[in-house]
Structures are given as C-alpha cells and as structure tokens.
C-alpha cells in the first residue's frame, strides 16, 4: 500500500446517525469476487431511483460536491455487517477519510486495513464540519496522519486519536500481514504448546 501522510480534501456531509454497511453497499452487490467497481454502488439505495437515475436531492449526487474526498457521517458510522466491501465502495467513490464522533469496531478495522482513515472528532467539531460542508461545498480540510491532526478551513487544528500500529503501518507503508508472518517462530511455538482439539480435515 502507498504510504499515507497528509492530504487536503473537500468535505461533504451525510449527517445521519448509525449509517450501516447495508446502506454503504447493499448486499446484492456482494456477489463480486474482486474489489473493483463497487464505487458505483456506494449508497446505491439512497443515491438512485428505481429506474437507476440519480436522485437529484441526494447530497452525493449534487454537482457542487463531486470530487469530495472526506465524508462527514453521523454518530456510529459503519455499524452492522462486517463486509469490507463498505470501505472498498467508499474508496471506489473517491473517499480518503470518513469523519464521525465514533465508528463501529469492525468497520474501523476494515477501513484502516485499506487506508481509508476513520477520523474521530468531538461533537462540537463534528457539528462545525457539517455546517461548513453544507454552507460551502468548496470547504476542505487537511488531514495529517503524522501529527494526527485535521485542520479546518479557519486554520484550527483538531487532534484525532488513531490506532498507533495502524498509523505506523499507513505512514510507512508497512504490510500488516507481513508483520504477522514475520512472527512465524512465535506462532509455531504457540502451536506446539497449545495443541488444538478441533480437526476439520478428516483423519
């Protein structure tokens, strides 16, 4: 994965609480066997009419918000299913970060594995960002992963927490699976001292 340090992106607000992964990418799009093309189906049921035409009043369809890279979601963003298709779809739709007051655990893990930044901010900042996005579609923020800061258009820097190991991996392009596989000696030692009871492969 390409290292991520800092970027500036325009914001768009979808200030709805508890946006579940079924809304981000409905289950009928999960029959794919690769990751490509999910962006077009991102928020499909909110974004398109029954005949497939875009709903004019849905924020992500508005001309002013095309090209936005930072999504401001409501509280508890990404709840529900474990489908990693959710961050794949959001990234396919052009997003590099989602900002909320908190994220569902599995979504947050999945997002971090793919370099989609789940940024948690306090309620006041959250409200401010929603207003900014709604009032001026050209509003942008600068996300700096190294300093863990999101900088608002007024220049105010807001610190955000992020899992330290995930941050290290994203900044340095460290492959997490490679890190685990490098622990092979420890894994083998664990297996020798903890013989499993269950054998799924017959005899």
């Amino acid at each position, binding site marked *: 994965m390409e290292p991520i340090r800092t970027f500036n992106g325009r914001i768009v607000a979808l*200030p*709805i*609480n*508890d946006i*579940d992964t*079924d*809304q981000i990418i*409905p*289950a*009928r799009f*999960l*029959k*794919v*066997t*690769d*990751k490509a093309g999910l962006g077009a189906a991102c928020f499909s*049921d909110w974004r398109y009419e*029954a005949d497939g035409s875009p709903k004019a009043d849905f924020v992500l369809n508005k001309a002013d918000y095309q090209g936005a890279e930072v999504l401001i979601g*409501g*509280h*508890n963003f990404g*709840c*529900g*299913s*474990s*489908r*990693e*298709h959710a961050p794949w779809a959001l990234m396919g739709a052009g997003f590099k970060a989602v900002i909320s007051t*908190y*994220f*569902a*655990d*599995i979504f947050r*893990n*999945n997002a971090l*594995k*793919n370099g989609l930044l789940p940024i948690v901010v306090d309620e006041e900042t959250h409200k401010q960002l929603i207003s900014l996005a709604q009032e001026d579609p050209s509003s942008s923020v600068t996300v700096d992963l190294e300093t863990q800061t999101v900088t608002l258009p007024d220049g105010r820097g807001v610190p955000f927490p992020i*899992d*330290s*190991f995930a941050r*290290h991996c994203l900044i340095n392009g460290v492959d*997490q*699976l490679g*890190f*685990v*596989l490098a*622990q*092979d000696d*420890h*894994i083998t030692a*664990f*297996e020798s001292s*903890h013989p*499993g*009871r*269950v*054998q*799924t*492969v*017959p005899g």
Partner: protein
Amino acid sequence: MTASTPRTLFEKVWENHLVQPETQDKPAILYIDLHLVHEVTSPQAFTMLRERGLKVRRPDRTIATMDHSTPTTPRNTAGIIPVIDTMAAAQLDIMRKNCAEFGIPLYDLGTENQGIVHVIGPEQGLTQPGMTIVCGDSHTSTHGAFGALAFGIGTSEVGHVLASQCLLQNRPKTMAVRVNGRLSAGVTAKDIILAVIAKIGIGGGTGYVFEYMGEAIRELSMEGRMTICNMSIEGGARAGMVAPDDTTFDYIAGRPHAPKGADWEKAVAGWRALPTDDGAVFDNEVILNADELVPMITYGTNPGMGMSITSAVPDPDKLSDVSQKIALDKALRYMDLQPGQSLLGKAIDVVFLGSCTNSRISDLREAAALIKGRKVADSVRMMVVPGSQQVKAQAEAEGLHEIFRAAGAEWREAGCSMCIAMNGDQLQPGQYAVSTSNRNFEGRQGKGGRTFLASPLTAVAAAVTGVVTDPRELSN
C-alpha cells in the same frame, strides 16, 4: 498479574490465546482456533494468498460452507437446488475451487452438513468452550454462547487468518449484561436481546465484549443463548459470551467433533475453569429484569429501535437530541409509521422464520407447536428456512415440515435466505415483514422492504392473523 487475580471469562480466553501480548505501540497477536469461511467474504482473501504465493497455514482448523448467496429454493425433481443467478453461481464455484486448491473442507450446497455458518459450527461440535473463533461475518458472535471468544472480521483479516492463523487485535473492554429473574410464558431469548439492544442502543456496546449472565441466561437452552450472543453485534459489541455449564456440555456431548472418552473428561474439566471468577471486574454493566419482559418488536430501521409489542411507536418530537430526532423521523418515514401508533393490528405481507438468529431446531419446534392446527392468513407469505441441512433433516424426522406445510407455509432449503436478500429470497418494495432475523436496516430484506424484528412465536402469531399480534394472545 498474580495467579490469584480474579479474571473474567473473556480475560481467560484472551490470555490463553496470546502469541504475543499487546504493547504500547503494537496490538496483541491472537491465535485463532477455528476459522469459518463462506462464499461472500472470502474470494478476495484467497486472491491475495495466490498473489503472494502463500498457503493456508492450518486448513485443519478451517471449515467452509455456502450460505449467503445460496438459494433456498426447494430441490427440483432431480434433487438439485437450482442456482438461477449467474453471479451467485460463479461465487459458489470460486468457493469450491478455493477450497479444493487450499485443502479446506467444504460443506457444499446440497450436501448433508451444509448450512448457515453459525448454525453448522455448533451443530458439528466444532464450536467449543474457551476457543477463539472468527469468520468474515459479524454474527460470528453467535459462538460465544459456548464460552468461546468469537467475532466477525473483514476480508483482509480473513486473509491474515488463512495465512497465519493469527490476528492483530487490541484488547476490547468488558461489559456484564445481567438478566435477572425468569421469563414469562410467550417471552423468549429473542425478546431478551431485543430488550438489551433497545436499552443500550445500537452503538452502546462499541468497544466491548459482552458477558451475558444471571438467572434468565442460565435457564436458557444453548439455542436460546446462541440467539442472544448472535445479536451482540446489533448492540455494537463484536463478541458476546456465556459461561459454559452443564447445559453447554450436554449440547456438545456426542457431536461429530466433540472430544470422546478420556479426552472428553479432560476437556470438561478445563471448561469448568472458564467461568468468570468471583470478584472479577468488568469495565461496564447493564442490568435487565426478565420478569418484566414482554414480547419485543422493532418499529424502526435499526435493531435498537425496539419496544414491547404492547407499546406505542415513539414520537421524534419528544427526543431532546437533535440527531436522534432526525434518525427516528427518517426511520418512521421509511417504515411509513406514525408516532404514537400501536403496531398491534398492523397488516403484514411476509413472515420470515429463519436466519442465524432463529433457525435452529428448537426455534422450529416452538414455531410448529404454535402454528399446529392453524392457517397462515391468505394475505401472508410465510417462509420457513431451516438453518442447516441437519436442522432440516431433524425437523422432517419430527414431522415439523408437514405442520408448516399444512398451515400454508413454505418449507425451504438451508441458508441465510431473506435475512441477507442476495439469494433470490427478498421482500418487494413497500412490503412489511415480521422476521426472526437480526437486522431491520433499510432494504436489508430487499430494496424498499420494511422489517419488524421479533421472536419465532411473534412471527407465527403474525402469520396466522395477518397482522402484528401479541403471541401470548394465541398461547392463551
């Protein structure tokens, strides 16, 4: 920590599986005892293995089945379950190919052990106390009913487990969910968990592992405990656990993968040491009284929007939090319901009895006992979808399928069916369903479909009356 420090069930299982402990800047490396795989969340993980030239480290601790994009259409005259969707058929073929190439046992469509991934693990005796179990599915929390630490993971993590049998994990916090007292007639495990989620909200358990405890939990069957643990994720908790006891051991004994003979005695002795020690500390606690519970139903578009079936739909204008008010208003518009309205008497179109929450043999027995001698209302389509081929065979041996058919319900093959609506089983736009499944999100059961989550008894009561009905009216 000294050996005498009291520990929770979660802490014991967690600490027993640490390949490397968590440090200031690195997560723990947690060993995974059992990895369950299905067709929808695994293809990209196998692709990654191929691209990197990796093998599956422990195919002997991995098991695959087909359930999500799998049709539950009754078999044709040749005994074949027809797959009519070409994308789904391709996904099933890739599952077969991946399992063959990497040496993973597969319960293929139409074979005797196939079923919903969270039904087959316990059924085969693969799910055992004290284990770590993962699957690319958020309802993996189901297996916690056995005192296992079981949670859903994404596809990247599926790849990690396939390649290394390990996961990088930060230690979650613990929450005790105490359910004191005893359930009244007509009130079930499903009502307990819907009440817990209504109380804490859909995000209330975020960052926690639940341990369900108290008299009402101890008195539940394993199926009931699985129903409760299954929906932990609907309260935001990745995992929910119940301490193993004789009910647990009796359920496991004699199953295909259960330990035998002297191994059994040794295993049970180990399992008896797992329950939370007296004096162990939880990070948080929630308490419910089972005596006060009545059948529950959801009215909104997430599982936290639930209430007693006798209550009225809440009014958004009475909520002080603006974002909650907006959310409820949006939900009621989607559901086309009015604040203050009772759901009792609300006409419904479909009843779905199935899913990893409520498709086990005891669910089918309870539902069959209530529907016997009654008829599904003319205006209602009722689908009964057993959780596995084993459940289906057992139900048929007991004649339950004849009871459902005589009532006018459809008796189908095993799978996730209308809970995930990616396999042909789905609601039409605008339809209302009473479902025994776990999610009432917008479009979850089909685009534009509207879901009321409830217990199997409440589902049957709706099926036979054609409207939302308190099942206690029927039982009486």
